[in-house]
């Protein structure tokens, strides 16, 4: 645990001190804020997918619901943004809890399709319920978050706000992984029947982690809405659920820092591939397939393998604790 905390502190220092000093505002900082939001979302999905082994292709729906609930409550009804954010997370967590029971009874492909169906229904409702959401043309004029007279209105301020929240979620996930619940989730991942035989209430636990991941997504959605001050349905479609899945898989299932790596890569990729324009969709698809076939453990595993290989070839004996 000590080593784990040290690793986390090092990471937090890197994110909160080094990165903002290095990229004094501007475009890159804006991209890094999105890395933060996506890391949070990827960790939320990773809790479900990497720990409990339950796939969800509807994460974008929770993200979108969080953003829209925050937007509507603050802008249309004049709620305090912080209150609206908490309310959104609780309401969406409750929703996920309720639909979680029938959905998580399903397994494998069926689970994938059910969550996907849910995601598409939410997307259609956001698009069609124009009176409430503004429909396809979007929802403008969402206020920035503020404490007293201090408003989070610049990229730099939002960088700290959003990365603060993301680091909080990371810490939560790291602790969760090493707790009794984390072990129970991994047991469910390996064999649900065996876990139940050991006295784990698998059904309830799966639903709880589903709700927890929905709440994290909702929180990310609220932060996004208050940062950009504009939301539109196209951000929260099926392709974003797939993008999130890609982040988690490419980073490494069940690895918190892997989710960060995956989110960073997928967020930066469009910026890097900008010169290739439309070809990035092909690259995406190929990456997803190649990674699953050749490196099912993700970037994190790839990094560990490479590190052990280097140590072995230079140190002669090494690789003892691999």
């Amino acid at each position, binding site marked *: 645990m000590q080593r784990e905390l040290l690793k986390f502190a090092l990471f937090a220092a890197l994110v909160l001190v080094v990165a903002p000093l290095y990229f004094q505002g501007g475009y890159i900082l804006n991209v890094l804020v999105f890395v933060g939001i996506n890391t949070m979302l990827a960790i939320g999905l990773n809790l479900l997918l990497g720990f409990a082994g339950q796939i969800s292709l509807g994460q974008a729906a929770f993200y979108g619901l969080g953003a829209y609930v925050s937007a509507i409550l603050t802008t249309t009804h004049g709620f305090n943004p912080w209150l609206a954010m908490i309310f959104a997370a609780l309401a969406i967590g409750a929703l996920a809890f309720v639909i979680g029971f029938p959905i998580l009874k399903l*397994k494998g492909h069926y689970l994938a*399709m*059910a969550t996907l169906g849910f995601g598409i229904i939410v997307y259609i409702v956001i698009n069609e319920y124009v009176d409430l959401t503004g429909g396809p043309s979007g929802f403008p004029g969402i206020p920035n978050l503020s404490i007293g007279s201090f408003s989070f209105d610049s990229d730099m301020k939002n960088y700290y706000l959003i990365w603060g929240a993301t680091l909080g979620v990371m810490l939560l996930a790291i602790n969760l992984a090493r707790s009794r619940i984390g072990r129970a989730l991994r047991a469910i991942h390996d064999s649900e029947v065996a876990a139940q035989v050991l006295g784990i209430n698998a059904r309830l636990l799966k639903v709880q982690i589903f709700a927890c991941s929905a709440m994290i997504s909702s929180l990310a959605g609220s932060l996004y809405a208050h940062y950009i001050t504009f939301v539109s349905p196209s951000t929260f479609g099926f392709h974003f659920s797939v993008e999130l899945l890609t982040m988690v898989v490419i980073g490494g299932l069940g690895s918190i820092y892997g989710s960060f790596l995956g989110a960073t890569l997928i967020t930066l990729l469009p910026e890097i591939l900008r010169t290739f324009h439309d070809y990035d969709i092909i690259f*995406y698809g*190929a990456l997803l397939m190649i990674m699953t*076939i050749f490196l*099912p453990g993700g970037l994190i595993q790839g990094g560990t393998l490479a590190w052990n290989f280097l140590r072995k070839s230079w140190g002669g004996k090494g690789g003892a604790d691999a």
Partner: protein
Amino acid sequence: MNLTDQLTQYILSGLSTGAIYALIGLGFAIIYNSTGIINFAQGEFVMFGGMLGVYFFHKQGLALPIAFLLAVVVTALCGVIFERFAIRPLRRPTPMNMVIITIGGSIFLRGVAMIAWGKDTHVLPTFSGDEPISFAGATLLPQHLWIFAITILLIIGTKLFFSHTISGKAMSACAVNRRAAGLVGIDVRRMIMFSFILSSAIGAMAGIIIAPLTMTSYDVGVMLGLKGFCAAIIGGMSSGLPTVIGGLLLGVLESLGAGFSSGYKDAVAFVILLLILFFRPQGLFSRGSSERV
């Protein structure tokens, strides 16, 4: 137009889209039964069929029947390549890996189509004119009849294939138990390959016969694929009649739903999907079986 006529109209047009869903659903079921994989790229085969049809007809100036045939053959070839290079290399397939790989494959294929043929929507001419036909107070296009005819032929064809040919029977055996099928000397790998050929070809045909009515573009595959999957789920993943009935049912319900509110039309299929998955995951027409641990 009175209410009954309107209803007939909705049901007839629902049946024709339903026939398309049925064909796509059959494609899902055939692959699922021989491999245990839900092929998320199934919709892309449908899109490829339509787009290749457009390409061979408009760009290469071939006669429609030849364009049709070529489009089906090339799509089937894509199915083989996809199976060989994306599905087979996986050493330890789990449902999750397969979901991710086939999603990756579908994104890849969509990207290829986008780059090859652009983002525009394309249209194929109807197979035999646009003269509307009156039928029981509703109007039909000749293309609707083509859709019904080709669907019926394909369904009878697959039925005969599965029950009367050695390969078809071998594939059915794989569906029941892959390992046992392997033990009695069936080349399971080849059967998996066959199932990809068959379902991509059927998907391609569905894509071509619907293209004159709904137009086609590089991104039509997602929705068509998902709705085809709904059809297969309603039919309990059977590669026969239940899936066909599931497709027709879905088409009609969707068409009636569109009569009430066109914006929520697409949601109908997914609400049905969720309801079926929640309450009757074994399909609408079969009894549940117990789970093996």
